[in-house]
C-alpha cells in the first residue's frame, strides 16, 4: 500500500470511474455520475433514443434545466419566448423529461437557472464525481474536485442510454498560482491571464489542475469562474482540489449527503487531492502578485491584456489573425483601452453570475448611476440567485443605478434568446467568449471581471477598477 505510485486528483477520479479499460488503443468506458441536460443540445439525443426504442438508464443521475434559449425579460405571462423554434425546443425538453422521468427545472420553477450555476447550488455537484453536459462550460464543476467536461449531442445520447462514455484518457497539466492576488484583481482576471499565457489551444488534450496559494484563497464562486474558462484555453476540464471551503459550501445543500453519509463523504473527499510527488505532463507557474485586472481586445479569449496596457502589435506568427481581430474590433495596435467608449455592459453568464459576482458589482454601483449612453444588464445565474440578490438589496442597488435587472438565463452570453448587442457596439461582458458575433452579429465583446464591468458601466468608458477607492473592493480581493 505504502509503495503506491503517487497519483494526481484527475487520475484518482478517472480510475474510480473506469467500467472497462480499453485494450489495444480503444478508449475506456467511463461511468458518469451526473448528467446535466439543457434544451439546446438534447433534443436530437432524445430522438436517437426514440428511434432505437431505448429508455434513459439513470434518470436519477440526470438533471435538466432551461437556460440558453429562455427569455430573461419577463413582462407577463405567457413567457415572451424569442420565436416559435425556441418555444418548440423548450417544449421538446419538457416532453422528453416527462417521458423519461427526468427531473426538470423548467420555466416558472424556483430552482431553474444556468445549468452550471444550479448544479452546485443544489448540491448535486460534488467532489470526486464525473459530470458531463452537452455544453463546453461544464468544466465549471471541476471547482469542486469533480472531473467535469462538455460533450456533443451524440454523446448526450450515449450517456442517456448507458450512463457511460467512451473516452480516451487526457493528459494532465498543473497551473500553480503562487502568492496573493492584488486588490481589484479577481478570479476572472486570473483565468484571463492564464489563457493569455497558455493560448487558446494551450490546454488541448489536457485536464488542468489549478493549485497554489492564490487558488486556495478563492471562494467557490471564484473557483468556478476559473474552472469555467478552462475550455477557452483548450482544456476540456479544469479541477481544483476540494478543501474546507468546498465542504463549507456544500454542507446542508439539498443534493449533498446528510448526517452520517455527509461525514463519510467528506472523509472520502479528503483523499482526492493529488498526492505529493504526483507527476503532471505539463506544469505552468504564475505569480499572483504580478497580475492586474485583465481585459480582452480581440476575438479569442487569449487576446487579453492588463487593462492599462497597450493593445499588442502583431507577432511574426499571428499577423493575419491579429489583423482580422483588430479590424473586427475597430481598434488599433498600441492603443490603450482605458477611456474607450462602451455602449453596453453585461454582468452575467455561467462565468460570473453568482452572488459573489453580483456583490462585487454592487459595491461599485451602490449610490452611482450608469453613464448616459450606456446600458447595463445584470442577469442572475439562477432564480435562487435572483431571489437572494433581491433579499439582500443588491437588485435595488442595480435598479437605482439604472441597470436592467433580469430573470436568470444565459442571456447575452450566447445571444440566442432575445438579449444581444447591435453591430459595431462595444460590450464589456463578464461572460467567457469574445468570438466574432458571439453577442450579436457585428457586436464587439471585451471580456472582463464584474468589478471592471461595473466600473465601466458607471463611467461609460473602460475603467480600471483599481482607480476607485480601495475600500470598494477590499472584500473582493479574491
Amino acid at each position, binding site marked *: 500500500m505504502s509503495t503506491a505510485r503517487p497519483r494526481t486528483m484527475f487520475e484518482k477520479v478517472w480510475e474510480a*470511474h473506469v467500467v472497462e479499460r480499453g485494450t489495444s488503443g480503444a478508449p475506456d468506458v467511463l461511468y458518469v455520475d451526473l448528467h446535466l441536460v439543457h434544451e439546446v*443540445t438534447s433534443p436530437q439525443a432524445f430522438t436517437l433514443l426514440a428511434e432505437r426504442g431505448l429508455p434513459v438508464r439513470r434518470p436519477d443521475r440526470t*438533471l435538466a434545466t432551461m437556460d440558453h434559449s429562455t427569455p430573461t425579460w419577463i413582462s407577463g405571462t405567457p413567457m415572451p419566448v424569442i420565436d416559435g*423554434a425556441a418555444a418548440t425546443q423548450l417544449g421538446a425538453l419538457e416532453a422528453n423529461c416527462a417521458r423519461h422521468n427526468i427531473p426538470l427545472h423548467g420555466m416558472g420553477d424556483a430552482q431553474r437557472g444556468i445549468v452550471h450555476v444550479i448544479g452546485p447550488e443544489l448540491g448535486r455537484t*460534488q467532489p470526486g464525481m464525473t459530470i458531463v453536459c452537452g455544453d463546453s462550460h461544464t468544466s465549471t464543476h471541476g471547482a469542486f474536485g469533480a472531473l467535469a467536461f462538455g460533450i456533443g449531442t451524440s*454523446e448526450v445520447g450515449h450517456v442517456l442510454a448507458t450512463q457511460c462514455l467512451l473516452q480516451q484518457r487526457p493528459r494532465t497539466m498543473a497551473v500553480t498560482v503562487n502568492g496573493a492576488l492584488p486588490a481589484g484583481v479577481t478570479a476572472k482576471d486570473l483565468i484571463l491571464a492564464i489563457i493569455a499565457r497558455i493560448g487558446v489551444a494551450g490546454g488541448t488534450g489536457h485536464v488542468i489542475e489549478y493549485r497554489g496559494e492564490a487558488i486556495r484563497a478563492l471562494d467557490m464562486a471564484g473557483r468556478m469562474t476559473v474552472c469555467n474558462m478552462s475550455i477557452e484555453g483548450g482544456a476540456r476540464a479544469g479541477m481544483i482540489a476540494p478543501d474546507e471551503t468546498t465542504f463549507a459550501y456544500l454542507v446542508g445543500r439539498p443534493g449533498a449527503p446528510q448526517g452520517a453519509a455527509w461525514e463519510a*463523504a467528506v472523509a472520502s473527499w479528503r483523499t482526492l487531492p493529488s498526492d505529493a510527488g504526483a507527476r503532471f505532463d505539463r506544469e505552468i507557474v504564475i505569480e499572483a502578485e504580478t497580475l492586474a485586472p485583465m481585459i480582452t481586445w480581440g476575438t479569442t479569449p487569449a487576446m487579453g491584456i492588463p487593462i492599462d496596457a497597450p493593445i499588442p502589435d502583431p507577432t511574426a506568427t499571428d499577423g493575419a489573425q491579429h489583423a482580422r481581430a483588430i479590424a473586427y474590433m475597430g481598434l488599433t495596435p498600441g492603443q490603450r483601452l482605458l477611456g474607450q467608449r462602451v455602449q453596453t455592459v453585461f454582468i452575467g453568464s455561467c462565468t460570473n453570475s453568482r452572488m459573489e459576482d453580483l456583490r462585487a458589482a454592487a459595491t461599485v454601483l451602490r449610490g452611482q448611476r450608469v453613464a448616459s449612453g450606456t446600458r447595463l444588464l445584470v442577469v442572475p445565474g439562477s432564480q435562487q440567485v435572483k431571489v437572494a440578490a433581491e433579499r439582500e438589496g443588491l437588485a435595488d442597488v442595480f435598479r437605482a443605478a439604472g441597470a436592467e435587472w433580469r430573470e436568470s438565463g444565459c442571456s447575452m452570453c450566447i445571444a440566442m434568446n432575445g438579449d444581444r448587442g447591435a453591430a459595431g457596439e462595444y460590450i464589456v461582458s463578464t461572460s467567457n*467568449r469574445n468570438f466574432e458575433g458571439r453577442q450579436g452579429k457585428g457586436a464587439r465583446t471585451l471580456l472582463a471581471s464584474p468589478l471592471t464591468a461595473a466600473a465601466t458601466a458607471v463611467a461609460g468608458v473602460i475603467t480600471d477598477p483599481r482607480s476607485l477607492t480601495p475600500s470598494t473592493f477590499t472584500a473582493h480581493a479574491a
Partner: protein
Amino acid sequence: MMHAFTDCTARAVLLPRDDVDTDQIIPARFLTTTVRSGLGRALFADWRTLPDAPAESRFALDDPGVQGAQILVAGRNFGCGSSREHAPWALTDWGFRVVIGASFADIFRNNAHKNGLLTVALHEEGLATLHRLLRETPRAAVTVSLREQYVTVGARFRANFTIDPFARRCLFDGVDELGYLLARAPAIAAFEARGAWTTGAAA
C-alpha cells in the same frame, strides 16, 4: 446510423484561418432547432457574402466554383469553442466529408468523427504547402485516404497523417459507438452494483 468513411477525391475549399470557432461555423441563433438536418444553410452564416461580391472579398464558400467540394482546408485549432454538434452537422449537410488543418479542438474532433466527418491534422509545413498549392490551383482535386492515411494532390503533393486508431476504426467500419456501449450493459450493471465509488444519484 453512421456511414463508413470511404476514401475521397474531391475539390477542396481553402479557409486559411486559425482558431475558427464553432460560433463562426454555425452562429448560436441557429441552435434552436430540434433536428440535425438542413443546417448547411447556416454554415459560416456570418462570413457568407453574395455570389457576385468581388473575388477578393468573397467568402470561400460563395465562390460559384465550389459546388461539389467535399474537403475543407483550414489552419490551427479548428472548431474551438462550444460543444455544439451542430458544427459538424452543418459541415456535413453542406457536403463536407473531411476537414484538414494543423490541429483541432478536442470536442469538435470527437463530434466530427461521430458524424463520419474525418479530421486530418497535417504537420504545419505540409499544411502550408497544401495552402499554397490550393491558392495556385483552387480547383485541384485533393485525395484523402483514411485506409492508407495520406493526403495527395495528384503527383504534386503528398503528406501522411496519423489518427487515433480507435477513431480510425470507427470511421472506417462505421462503428456504432452507442451499440458498442449498449453491449457493455453487464459490465455497467456490475459497476453500478459495486456502488461504493461515489455518491451522486438523486435521493
